[in-house]
């Protein structure tokens, strides 16, 4: 790639946008999964105590 090209900023912008959206979606997904697992563990431990 020719880094002196005036288009480099557009290319970097596009790749940062794509990477940012994919990262946010992955983090949101992992967070929701973790929360659901914690809720399930809580119910399972309450059940065991009862």
């Amino acid at each position, binding site marked *: *790639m*020719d880094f002196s*090209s*005036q*288009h*480099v900023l*557009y*290319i970097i*912008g*596009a*790749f940062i*946008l*794509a990477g940012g*959206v*994919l990262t*946010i*979606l*992955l983090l*949101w*997904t*992992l967070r*929701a*999964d973790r929360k*659901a*697992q914690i*809720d*399930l563990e809580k*119910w399972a431990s309450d*059940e065991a105590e009862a």
Partner: protein
Amino acid sequence: MVSHLSHPKPLLRMAEILLPWAAATSFIFMGAGLLWGLILSPADYQQGESVRIMYVHVPASWGALCVYTAMAILSGLAFVTRAPLFHLMAKSIAPIGMAFAFISLGTGAIWGKPTWGTWWVWDARLTSMLLLFILYLGYWMLVSMFEEEERGLSAGAVIALVGWVNVPIIKWSVDWWYTLHQPASVLRFAKPAIHWTMLMPLLCMAMAFALYGLVVAIIRFRTELTKRKVRAFQIRDWIVQQEKEAA
């Protein structure tokens, strides 16, 4: 096959075996695609370096169309078989398609500026893609807004099925109408009109996006099943409590 897919346990077990492999392969394809697309592939003789935006724009656009088609198929299966699992699968993949559609629109606007001299034009391809993003938003709002989840999922499934009409319109909009957007270079009946030095990194990135989508879909599906399990516990406890109070 369909009845096998409607049972969550074996399906989830299979998916979880697949998960680390899909994640690792996606990572490898993403690395290779970025290196190939950003450094090794040649610039375009007309568009110059800005053609490299294609390596994220095109896989995201393909992904958005494929995910919506999968949502429509799953929604149809949910209505035909009355198995709620298909609704959950459709709900699990919707945010992936929405993210892909957003990336397609965003990177398309960034690519449009140096190529066409404008961020946006209301032509058939761009407008139908924006409509796809709005359909994803509508689906997500419907499945999230109802207190009774099943009603939301059914309403969302109707949007997924009816909205699928837009998918062939997006695909062939560049042939049916005069648009600024270039016609298809890869997915067409004739031989691809793109040189292999650009086609290979493009396919590499498309694989990376597809595998990334698979990884997120598996995790989101697992989350939906876990939430259902927790809700079943809550309902059972509530029933037990009501029975105690009645006694």
